């Protein structure tokens, strides 16, 4: 909305500004300005009507959601977060297979949780994909298969427990992630960069 489109009173004050401060005491200007006083009175009536309607809706049995509706909404919301952006794993005449970055991140966190003395924090996954037609065709499939063979670059930030031998522990973590990705997803880990950004007391 352009500035000149904002509805203003004759005194120059915007209606929006009066509405935003309707619950506060009037300013020095508003105490003496007849137009502002009229606007405040009318807006207070509107505010009261809105409040009453809201209260009425809260207690209206016809507007009560069915049982389980909140859980269903939360399930959808969580699924939408998990969807995020996806990585193409396989493409063929009979369909594609993709994986969400969130699924990979969760898997990496689960792997990290298995290493004592490591708390995973942020995880970012970069993809360098190179399509290779006709390679790695799974048994039982027909038609042209293109395996996207994404090369993953996993960047994981962790906090380490004080007293652990960091290089050895991080090597174990890298190994865990490198084993988990082929076993649980079916793709190789590529590069795993780990940054120890903090220490925590055990």
């Amino acid at each position: 909305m352009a500035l000149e489109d904002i509805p203003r009173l004759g005194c120059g004050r915007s209606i929006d500004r009066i509405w935003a401060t309707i619950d506060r005491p009037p300013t020095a200007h508003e105490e003496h300005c007849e137009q502002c006083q009229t606007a405040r009175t009318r807006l207070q009536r509107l505010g009261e009507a809105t409040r009453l309607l809201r209260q009425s809706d809260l207690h209206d049995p016809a507007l009560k959601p069915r049982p389980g509706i909140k859980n269903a909404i939360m399930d959808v919301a969580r699924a939408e977060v998990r969807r995020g952006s996806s990585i193409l794993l396989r493409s063929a005449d009979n369909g594609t297979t993709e994986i969400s970055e969130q699924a990979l991140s969760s898997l990496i966190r689960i792997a990290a949780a298995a290493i004592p003395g490591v708390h995973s924090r942020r995880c970012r996954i970069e993809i360098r994909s190179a399509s290779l037609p006709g390679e790695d065709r799974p048994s039982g499939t027909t038609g042209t298969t293109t395996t996207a063979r994404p090369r993953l670059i996993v960047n994981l930030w962790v906090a380490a427990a004080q007293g652990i031998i960091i290089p050895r522990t991080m090597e174990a973590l890298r190994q865990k992630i490198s084993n988990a990705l082929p076993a649980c997803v079916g793709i190789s880990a590529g590069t795993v960069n780990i940054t120890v950004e903090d220490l925590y007391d055990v």
Partner: protein
Amino acid sequence: MSDQSFKGSLITSRLIASLATRTTLETPGVLRLEPTIQGFLARLGPAALQNLRKPGSQDGTYRQNGVPATISDGTARVHLDIATDIAYTALDVAETVRRRVRENISHTGLTPGTIDVTIVAIEPHRRATML
């Protein structure tokens, strides 16, 4: 709707969505199908779904629990968003789902088209050990 008649029977996109849903959930390694906003609204009621639809989207697509299935020129296409068990290799699970859904679609007399699978989550099964 672009329902296809075949040998005196009527195969609807709704049936294909239902078939794909059941086949997917029966595949070892699949924990669940992920819900979608449109699937959720479809469960709330047709009016809610209608509000979300754009004019012209009545293209024979039907969603059963968030699974969109389309029939066009005798070919059925399906998109599946799945969560897989961490004890299984997700890529293999997706491939098995695709193969089984294609088989079951072919039993209806339709030609199986693209079966796109997105792995939205990989999680431990409730009683499974971690990695």
